[in-house]
């Protein structure tokens, strides 16, 4: 298929490989490797020079997967870590080989959790095969040999062979049906700080992200989608671009227009010169106010899906010593990955080849195939490096079908790059949400009853309706269900779904990002009403939960490191929050000051993190810092607002990001308690806003019940 278009794909791959040195960053080389040396299990290729190539099915988007997943293999393989390189297998290869590499989807902090066992087993399997090959060569029993650092040693005779010498023979040996994994106490690599494999290339500008893909004969496209969600294209007046250079074609889609040109800049200029008319599909009058009214209706609605109920609410509210009530709300948020959405596609007849920065290569493949009405077998997918993901590039692959439809109109490869404005205005946003809290406290100030009514845009009902059970979206209520840490005798969490026309999706740490803010702020309100220290109040309330020990451990660890019971710096106040997300337990203490002019400063944030097992403490710590920035950016500034059915924000000048000057000192206490595996990339995001807002309450007496903070006047009056 490539010959026809005159593209020598092999030459292209080689060029990329040579440009990036040892690591072929950004590109799969499955075929090339398979031709070079034998596979010992689908995950491992060992070359005669002892180079170990480990395959990584998940995407690298900054979270360190590309280093952590190979560590899991290498620990059991007993190879020399300095000889390890990595490659991404292609999703279409996975399909052809009966999904031998399993799931490619990268999200939900799942990469370690779901991969650890198969990867460690692959390493152990390959190690046993290599030992068996060496033993056979020597004519000795395999149990007299052991592997360490890519060398197999025969104990009694002291003879040695390196992995590279026996790799070909090992590949022919039937894999053992059972392998024994090491006891964590014997780990030499896992749990130690290991340098990331991709850093040197990244400081030299070498990795190829999707936006950097460059194919011979490639054209470029800029696009504009209907600014009002769910609207359609009415007409395009092309007269303004007749004389513009480099323009190849104007592609009109149902709800978008694209200009294909010799360069992206020329395409963008021409796109801006088009006069486009849209049909707003009836949503052109939707605004922040109408969405707010719609959600307020949800708070008061009689009907709501029950996520959890304990005891009897009416009984709990009867004879309460104190009742407290409060409404909370959060806005839509865009992901704003640093690399805007993009996808490069070459369609030839009934096959297609795509290059895409995606968190889910298999979904990208299926989506391209579906759009073209062809079989997935006919779509070749190359995953590139990702300039951030945060959930934008996972469950939603909208950038793929758009690019495919544009590329279908031209007979050359086309790289479709979204402008930042397009990227901000066409996202699958963190849902808008509200919570109405009512609680009854007893004479000691402890809660007897608590009703949590939530409302807002359901992600499941739009993206994965089959996940709904009896109309209940459990993900929307995460943090208020079995994962709610506190003992409340009479408790009800229910959710009235209110879907707006704005598309919503999975945003780093998903619904925990609002629910933890709602819950941990309101618990602080209860503590204040009870006149009890917020840390002490939580300690009393975390009692019978099956993970009580873990919740308490991170809470205490964060409080101890922060010096909760010692005075903070002058004018500085502390707030805290605790949560469990995707199996990881996390607590934070934020230190904040509020100036006379209302400016909020956050000099220090302490995070305590228990993901069970930590593979690479270096990346775990950096993920924690990264998550704090993500959560803090949203708490301070994050807000996507709707007017006339469209997003009002467009770029970083009006969708503000945290910068270096505002960066708190982040201290992470890694407190893995062992025995389980969970992730680090998302969980700390959720605890930042409540810890900060609780600190602001301590500082000012003002309770923050809506985000972002920039909308609040915190000046001293």
């Amino acid at each position, binding site marked *: 298929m490539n010959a026809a278009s005159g593209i020598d794909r092999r030459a292209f791959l080689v060029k990329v490989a040579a440009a990036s040195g040892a690591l072929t960053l950004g590109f799969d080389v499955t075929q090339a490797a398979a031709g070079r040396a034998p596979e010992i299990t689908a995950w491992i290729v060992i070359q005669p020079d002892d180079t170990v190539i480990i395959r990584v099915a998940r995407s690298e988007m900054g979270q360190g997967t590309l280093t952590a997943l190979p560590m899991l293999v290498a620990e059991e393989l007993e190879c020399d870590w300095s000889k390890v390189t990595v490659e991404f297998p292609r999703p279409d290869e996975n399909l052809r080989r009966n999904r031998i590499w399993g799931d490619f989807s990268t999200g939900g902090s799942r990469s370690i959790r779901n991969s650890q066992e198969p990867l460690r087993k692959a390493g152990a399997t390959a190690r046993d095969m290599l030992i068996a090959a060496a033993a056979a060569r020597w004519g000795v029993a395999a149990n007299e040999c052991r592997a360490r650092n890519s060398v197999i040693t025969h104990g009694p005779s002291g003879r040695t062979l390196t992995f590279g010498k026996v790799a070909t023979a090992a590949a022919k040996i039937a894999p053992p049906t059972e392998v024994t994994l090491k006891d964590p106490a014997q780990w030499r690599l896992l749990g130690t700080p290991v340098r990331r494999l991709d850093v040197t290339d990244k*400081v030299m*500008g070498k990795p190829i992200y999707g936006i950097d893909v460059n194919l011979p004969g490639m054209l470029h496209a800029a696009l504009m989608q209907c600014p009002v969600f769910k609207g359609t294209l009415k007409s395009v007046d092309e007269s303004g671009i007749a004389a513009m250079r480099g323009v190849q074609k104007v592609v009109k889609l149902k709800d978008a227009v694209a200009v294909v040109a010799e360069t992206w800049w020329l395409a963008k200029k021409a796109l801006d010169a088009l006069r486009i008319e849209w049909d707003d599909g009836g949503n052109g009058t939707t605004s922040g106010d109408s969405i707010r009214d719609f959600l307020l209706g949800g708070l008061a609605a009689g009907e709501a899906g029950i996520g959890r109920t304990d005891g009897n609410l009416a009984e709990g509210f009867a004879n309460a010593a104190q009742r407290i009530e409060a409404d909370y709300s959060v806005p839509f948020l865009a992901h704003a990955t640093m690399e805007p959405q993009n996808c490069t596609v070459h369609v030839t007849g009934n096959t297609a080849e795509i290059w895409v920065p995606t968190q889910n290569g298999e979904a990208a493949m299926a989506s391209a195939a579906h759009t073209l009405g062809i079989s997935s077998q006919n779509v070749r997918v190359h995953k590139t490096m990702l300039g951030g993901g945060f959930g934008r590039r996972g469950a939603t692959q909208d950038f793929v079908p758009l690019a495919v439809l544009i590329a279908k109109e031209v007979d050359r490869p086309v790289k479709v790059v979204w402008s930042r404005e397009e990227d901000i205005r066409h996202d699958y946003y963190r849902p808008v949400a509200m919570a109405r809290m009512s609680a009854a406290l007893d004479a000691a100030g402890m809660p007897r009853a608590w009703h949590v009514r939530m409302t807002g845009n359901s992600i499941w009902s739009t993206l994965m309706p089959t996940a709904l059970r009896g109309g209940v979206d459990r993900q929307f209520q995460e943090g208020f269900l079995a994962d709610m840490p506190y003992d409340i005798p009479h408790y009800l969490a229910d959710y009235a779904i209110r879907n707006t026309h704005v598309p919503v999706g999975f945003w780093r740490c998903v619904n925990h990002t609002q629910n933890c803010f709602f819950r941990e702020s309101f618990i602080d309100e209860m503590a204040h009403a009870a006149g009890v220290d917020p840390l002490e109040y939580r300690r009393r309330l975390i009692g019978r939960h099956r993970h009580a020990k873990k919740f308490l451990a991170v809470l205490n660890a964060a409080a101890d490191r922060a010096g909760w019971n010692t005075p903070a710096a002058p004018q500085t106040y502390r707030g805290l929050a605790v949560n469990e997300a995707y199996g990881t337990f996390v607590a934070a203490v934020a230190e904040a000051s509020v100036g006379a002019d209302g400016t909020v400063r956050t000099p220090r944030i302490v995070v305590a993190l228990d993901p069970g097992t930590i593979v690479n403490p270096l990346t775990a710590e950096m993920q924690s810092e990264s998550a704090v920035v993500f959560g803090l950016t949203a708490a301070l500034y994050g807000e996507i607002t709707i007017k006339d059915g469209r997003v009002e924000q467009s770029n*970083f000048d009006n969708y503000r990001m945290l910068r270096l*000057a505002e960066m708190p000192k*982040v201290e992470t206490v890694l407190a893995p308690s062992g025995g389980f595996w969970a992730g680090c990339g998302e969980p700390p995001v959720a605890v930042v806003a409540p810890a900060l807002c609780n600190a602001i309450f301590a500082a000012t007496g003002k309770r923050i019940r809506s985000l972002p903070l920039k909308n609040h006047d915190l000046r001293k009056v």
Partner: protein
Amino acid sequence: MISLTINGQSHNVDVEPDTPLLWAIRENVGLTGTKYGCGVAQCGSCTVHVDGVAMRSCAVPASAAIGKRITTIEGLAENGVLHKVQKAWVDHEVPQCGYCQSGMIMAVAALLKDKPKPTDADINSAITNICRCGTFQQVREAIHAAASA
């Protein structure tokens, strides 16, 4: 056709004079280490040196760089030896996704030329690049390390 000198090499580039330098570098010259993040001088992903001064190339017309020395991330290392900022970046493992890092490194390299021992306040006011992965803590540490290297 305009002539641009990038990393010591001269290139004849067929662009309109008002084409942003960023796109001339990425699309016409083919050096993709310099990144597009916003196009409106907000994020700094596109930072390059023009006659030694850090500039956000999305906001500089290509014509304004004629006759000047342009350095991109690909030209920062000399004779295969990493610049001290790049070295500090490797030691402190600064990059996460890496996308913003070319611009971040170029901005820091220019800062250190101006102020070899920057204070935290100098760093705060000079380094305003956006990093969505939130590498700022490592960035600050690495700047101090590079300054004392």
